[in-house]
């Protein structure tokens, strides 16, 4: 996506800000729950810790309709190409949150079967540590992503 940046005047920065505001206020996550972290992700979307207040309770099954991929769980060797394919199918702008220790670094399973860190397959914007991270940690990660987008730090072109 080409950023509206050629002339840097009042009009384009305001449109930029409005665009970023819109992006953060209704991000649709793609369902990419793999293992235990997926359960915590579902718990984050459920009633007790409600993701709907951030406009995100709609987990889109089709990656074509999603803009956030929360990789929740351990990515095995067999799953890595699938992960990449789903990421490629998402339209821009898109962001990736790597949820949990296994997705961020391979976690406690430092062996032949897992990809040691999902950032070897897709570019990651936020890493949420935990095994599994509780709903509050995940929400903190999501809100940090929102802040980074609003402040213009994360540029996707």
């Amino acid at each position, binding site marked *: 996506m080409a950023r509206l940046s050629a002339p840097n005047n009042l009009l384009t920065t305001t449109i930029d800000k409005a665009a970023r505001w819109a992006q953060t206020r209704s991000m649709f996550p793609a*369902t*990419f*729950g*793999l*293992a*235990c972290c*997926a*359960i*915590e992700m*579902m*718990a984050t979307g*459920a*009633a*007790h810790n409600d993701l709907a207040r951030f406009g995100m309770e709609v*987990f889109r*099954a089709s*990656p074509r309709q999603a803009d956030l991929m929360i990789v929740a*769980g*351990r990515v*095995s*060797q*067999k*799953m890595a*190409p*699938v992960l990449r*394919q*789903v990421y490629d199918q998402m339209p821009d702008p898109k962001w990736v949150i790597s949820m949990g220790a296994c997705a961020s670094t391979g976690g*406690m*399973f430092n*062996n*032949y*079967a*897992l990809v040691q860190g999902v950032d070897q397959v897709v570019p990651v914007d936020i890493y949420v540590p935990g*095994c*599994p991270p*509780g709903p509050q940690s995940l929400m903190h990660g999501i809100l940090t992503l929102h802040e980074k987008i609003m402040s213009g730090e994360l540029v996707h072109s």
Partner: protein
Amino acid sequence: MADQRTEEIWVAGTEEWDGASTDEGAQTMREEETASRLAEQIGAVVSDDYVIEDEAADDERMIINMGPQHPSTHGVLRLQLELEGEIIRRSKPIIGYLHTGMEKTAETLTFMQGPTNVTRMDYLAPFHNELCFSLAVEKLAGIEAPPRAQVIRVLMTELNRISSHLIALATNGMDIGAISMMLYGFRDRELILSFFEKTTGLRMNHNYIRPGGVAADLPPGWRQDVEEICRVIPQRLDDYDDLLQNNPIWLERTKGVGVITGEECLAYSITGPPLRASGVNWDLRKAFPYSGLEDYEFEVPLGQNGDVYDRYRVKVEEIIQSVGIVRQAAERMPKGDYRVDDRKITPPPRKRIDESMEALIHHFKIFTEGFRVPTGETYVAIESPRGELGCYLVSNGAGKPWRMHTRAPSFYNLQALPIMMADSLVADTIATIASLDPVMGDVDR
């Protein structure tokens, strides 16, 4: 004793077909002639109406791939379906997308670190995995957990059974369309999870039940929490019954769907709620009791038809029975140690380390090398919410297992999917998978 129909359909369902293959490699389905040849080889009787298709032409069938990334496959399960219109003629579950090499990792971890690894297999019932592993280690090491630890273990595992069945009901409901069921299930599970967090420090994957006992004692005020759970959950179950039990849509979509008979279950090594829903009275808590369960009074709910509805009812009834067991465990909680007194296995309390040289050495040995378990092999199985969860453990006298294998109930239960889904609609597939309640961490390990 394996049913005739079992052999035909199973052989037909797991053949390979040379055709469109996928990126991940050749998990393909063979042509149908091989079916009859194979069937002849193993002596099954091939009947015309299923194996040899003379009605539909081959080009009317479509091979569709469902998963591994799909909201309804309960994790990363991939299903290859051969469809004729909306009817499934053959199907093949393809697994391995969550293979974590846990059995290999177990050979590099000590026996005390073992539960950390094992607990992440069936991540909806972590206490059961830990209990199974701990019982296997205790059997090999010849130790027994003290009475208080055993009652705590029963308390935690039965609470875990309730929370696991709540998720099963939640996802079952959501897959069929009753989305409020999902929210109800997760809301009520939070009650139990907050008790787990108070006791073990974590909401999931607790590493609490360890060889020798449990990691820590119950927190003060646990009785009120447990009573609250036992009071609230049956009321909530009534709410779910209001939503589902007599709902005509629910009944339409679950009765008569995904049927499997008792004999087929036995032939396919299916255990747990699917087996009991088909009418076979087999629960390891009654057949081979462990951890003092022979002293508790509870019933084993059975179904009759082996369809999705019966599996749902069995789970609801099991929640009610588990609430009873939790109450009994809370009443009979004895005082005492929560870990076995053997200094070679249980680490000493922290302040003793400053006072005694021996305590310091034991602490060091246990946490670096791990305690040694005598040479031998054993198989211990418990009843997890999904079925028979077993641990086959081989030790060669070192501080780490030589081989640790987990008999995963979901791995075997998935083999029945082609049987249950034969000649049914795609929409029924979703209901069937949800009722089998597979956990892919358990399947792939």
